[in-house]
C-alpha cells in the first residue's frame, strides 16, 4: 500500500485556561490517502476545528497547545518541523480554508495581491507571473471578469465570492492536501451547494486530498469517501461514507443520523434530537463520554473508556455495544 498522505497519530491538543485544562482533542488518530476526501463530523465544540488547526499548527498559543502525538505528512512529522519547513508546507503542499469568508481575507489588500502573495511565496514566480496565476485561479473558481476584479478589495465581494477567493488562494500552489474547516457553514444554502461542488470539482482536477470538516451530514454524504465522527475530543466512529450511512455502529452516529430531517418525514412530526448536552471537556468523567446521553449505556460504559476498535469491514467504533 502506498504511503499515507497524512497520518495523524494519537494527537492531543489541550487549552490551558483559568478554569482548567480543556482537553479539546484527546488521542485522535486518522489518515488520508492521496486524492481522497475524508469527512470529519461532529457537533459544535467536539474538537473538529481544533484538530484541523493542530495539523498545520495554526492554533493560537497560548492558550492552545499540542501536548502529544504525531502529524505525519508524507512521512515527515509536522509537529517537529522548524519554522522554515513549516512555512514551506503551509499554503504550499498543504493549504487550508476557513469557516468565515467575511473575516478570513485581509480587508486592506486587493484580492489579486492576496492570491499572488501565496503564489510568490511557494512557486517562486515574479510579480507578473504571479498575477497571471491569480487571474487563472479566479477564473477557475468561476469569478467573472477575473482580471478586472484583481484590484478589488474583499469588501466588494459577497460571502460566497469571498469563499471562492479563499479556495483560489488555497489551491493556487497545487497543494496535495486541502483542509476545509466548515467551508460552507457561514454561507446560505444555495451558495453552499455551489461552493461545495466547486471545491469537489477542483480537488479532483488538482488531485488534491481533502479533509472536510463539517457538522452537516448532508455535506458528508455528497462529498466524502470516508467519514470520521468525533465526540468530546475523540473519534468515536470511522467508516466509508456508504457504510456509515447504511450501518452506523456507534449510538452517537445513529442518533446523529436519526436527527437529520428527511424529505419523507410526515409533515408536522417532531424532529428527532439527542437528549442532554455534550460533556464539559475540563472534567470528563471516566468511561465513555457519550454514556450519559446514550440509550444503550450499561454499567461498563460509565466505568471504562471504550477503545476505537474494528467492528466491521473497514469500520471502527469506540463502543462496547455497537450496532
Amino acid at each position, binding site marked *: 500500500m502506498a504511503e499515507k498522505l497524512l497520518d495523524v497519530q494519537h494527537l492531543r491538543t489541550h487549552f490551558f485556561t483559568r478554569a482548567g485544562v480543556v482537553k479539546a482533542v484527546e488521542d485522535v488518530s486518522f489518515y488520508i490517502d492521496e486524492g481522497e476526501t475524508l469527512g470529519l463530523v461532529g457537533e459544535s465544540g467536539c474538537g473538529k476545528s481544533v484538530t484541523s488547526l493542530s495539523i498545520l499548527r495554526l492554533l493560537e498559543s497560548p492558550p492552545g497547545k499540542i501536548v502529544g502525538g504525531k502529524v505525519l505528512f508524507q512521512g515527515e512529522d509536522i509537529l517537529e518541523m522548524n519554522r522554515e519547513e513549516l512555512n514551506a508546507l*503551509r*499554503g504550499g503542499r498543504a493549504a487550508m480554508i*476557513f469557516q468565515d469568508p467575511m473575516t478570513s481575507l485581509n480587508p486592506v489588500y486587493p484580492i489579486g495581491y492576496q492570491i499572488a502573495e501565496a503564489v510568490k511565496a511557494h512557486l517562486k514566480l515574479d510579480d507578473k507571473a504571479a498575477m497571471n496565476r491569480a487571474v487563472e485561479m479566479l477564473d477557475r473558481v468561476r469569478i467573472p471578469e477575473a482580471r478586472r476584479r484583481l484590484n478589488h478589495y474583499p469588501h466588494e465581494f459577497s460571502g460566497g465570492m469571498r469563499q471562492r477567493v479563499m479556495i483560489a488562494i488555497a489551491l493556487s500552489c497545487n497543494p496535495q492536501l486541502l483542509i476545509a474547516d466548515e467551508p460552507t457553514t457561514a454561507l446560505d444554502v444555495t451558495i453552499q451547494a455551489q461552493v461545495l461542488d466547486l471545491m469537489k470539482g477542483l480537488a479532483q482536477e488538482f488531485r488534491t486530498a481533502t479533509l472536510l470538516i463539517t457538522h452537516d451530514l448532508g455535506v458528508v454524504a455528497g462529498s466524502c469517501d470516508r467519514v470520521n465522527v468525533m465526540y468530546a475530543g475523540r473519534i468515536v466512529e470511522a467508516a466509508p461514507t456508504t457504510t456509515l450511512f447504511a450501518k452506523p455502529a456507534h449510538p452517537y452516529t445513529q442518533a446523529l443520523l436519526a436527527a437529520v430531517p428527511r424529505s419523507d418525514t410526515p409533515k408536522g412530526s417532531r424532529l428527532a434530537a439527542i437528549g442532554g448536552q455534550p460533556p464539559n471537556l475540563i472534567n470528563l468523567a471516566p468511561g465513555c463520554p457519550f454514556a450519559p446521553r446514550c440509550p444503550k449505556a450499561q454499567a461498563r460504559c460509565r466505568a471504562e473508556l471504550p477503545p476505537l476498535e474494528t467492528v466491521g469491514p473497514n469500520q471502527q467504533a469506540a463502543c462496547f455495544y455497537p450496532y
Partner: protein
Amino acid sequence: MDQLSQNLPGIIFLLVIVGICAFTAIRVGVRFLIRRLAGLVFVLWGVSFITFVLGYFAPGNAVLVNCNGHCPRAQVASLMHFYGLDQGFWQQYWHFLSNAVRLDFGYSYIDRTVRVNDILSRYVPVSAQLGISGVVLAVLVGVPLGLYAAVKANTAFDTVAQTASLVLFALPSFVLIPFYWLIMINLHNAGLPSLAVTGWDSWDAMVGPILIFGAGAFAFFVRITRASMLEVLRQDYVRTARAKGLQERVVIWKHAFRNALINVLTAVGPALGFAVGGVFIIELLFNIPGIGVYSLTAIENRDYPVVQATVLLIAVFIALANLLTDVAYGIADPRIKTQ
C-alpha cells in the same frame, strides 16, 4: 524680496494646505474633501466669533492696558480710534473678521507699533519645533515599541514596556521636569557631561523639553498600538496569512500592522490637540520663548488681539490635524473610499 522673506512662513503654510487638499482629492475623493473643508470653515468661523465676543465683553481694553487708566482724554480718543474700539459691535466684528480672513490680526494692545503677526512669527516657530519634534519622536519610538510589546504579549518585555508607559502616561510633565533638573544638576556638580536645563538657544537645551514633552505622547502611542495590534493579531485574516506560509515578519508588518495602523491613526488627531496644552507647561517651566508662554502673558496683560490670534491658530492647527487624520485614514483603509 524683503516682502517675500517676510511672508515666507505664510506662503509655506498655504502651500502645505494646498498640497494636503490636492492629495486628499486624489486619494479619497473630491466630495470628501469639499465636505471636510466646509466643516473646517464653519469651525473656524465659530471659534473666531467666540474669541471676538470674549475679547469684546471681557473687562479692560487697549486704553487701560496702555496707560493704566490715567491717560489724557485726547490720547484715549486717539487710541480708541486707532484700535477701532470707538465703533459699534457689528462694525468691530466685521473689521475683525475681514482682517482675520486676510491673516491680519492688527496691533498689540501693549505696543501699537508691534503687529500681532510679528509676534506670532517670532514665537510660534519655537513652539512648533518643540511640539512637532516631541510628537514625531513619540510616534517613531512609541509605535514600534507597542507593536513589539503586542507580538511579545505577556512576556517580560511586554510587562516592562507596559509598566513604563503607564508610569510615563500617569506622570504629568511638571513632575518629570524637576526630576530631569535634579539629574542634570547632579551630573553637572559631579563634573560629568550634562545638558542645559533652561532656554531654547542650543541643541542641548532642546533635548530635555522635547523628551519630556514626547514622554506622555510616547506612552499613549505604546499603549494604543499594543492594544490595536493585539486585537488584529487575533483576526481570522492573520491566521489566513500564516496558513499561506508567509514569513512571520510579513504576517506581522504587512497583514497585522497595516490594519492596526488604522486604529492608531484615528488617535493621532486628538493626541495632537491634547499636546497643545502640554507645550504651554513645558515652555513655562523650561523658560522657552514660545507662543504658549507669550499668550499666557498676553492674557494677563489683556492683550486681546494676541489672545484671539493664538486661539484661532490653535483651532486651525487642530482642525487641520483632524483633516490630515481623516485623509490618512482614507488612505490606510480602502473601505472608506467607496462608502
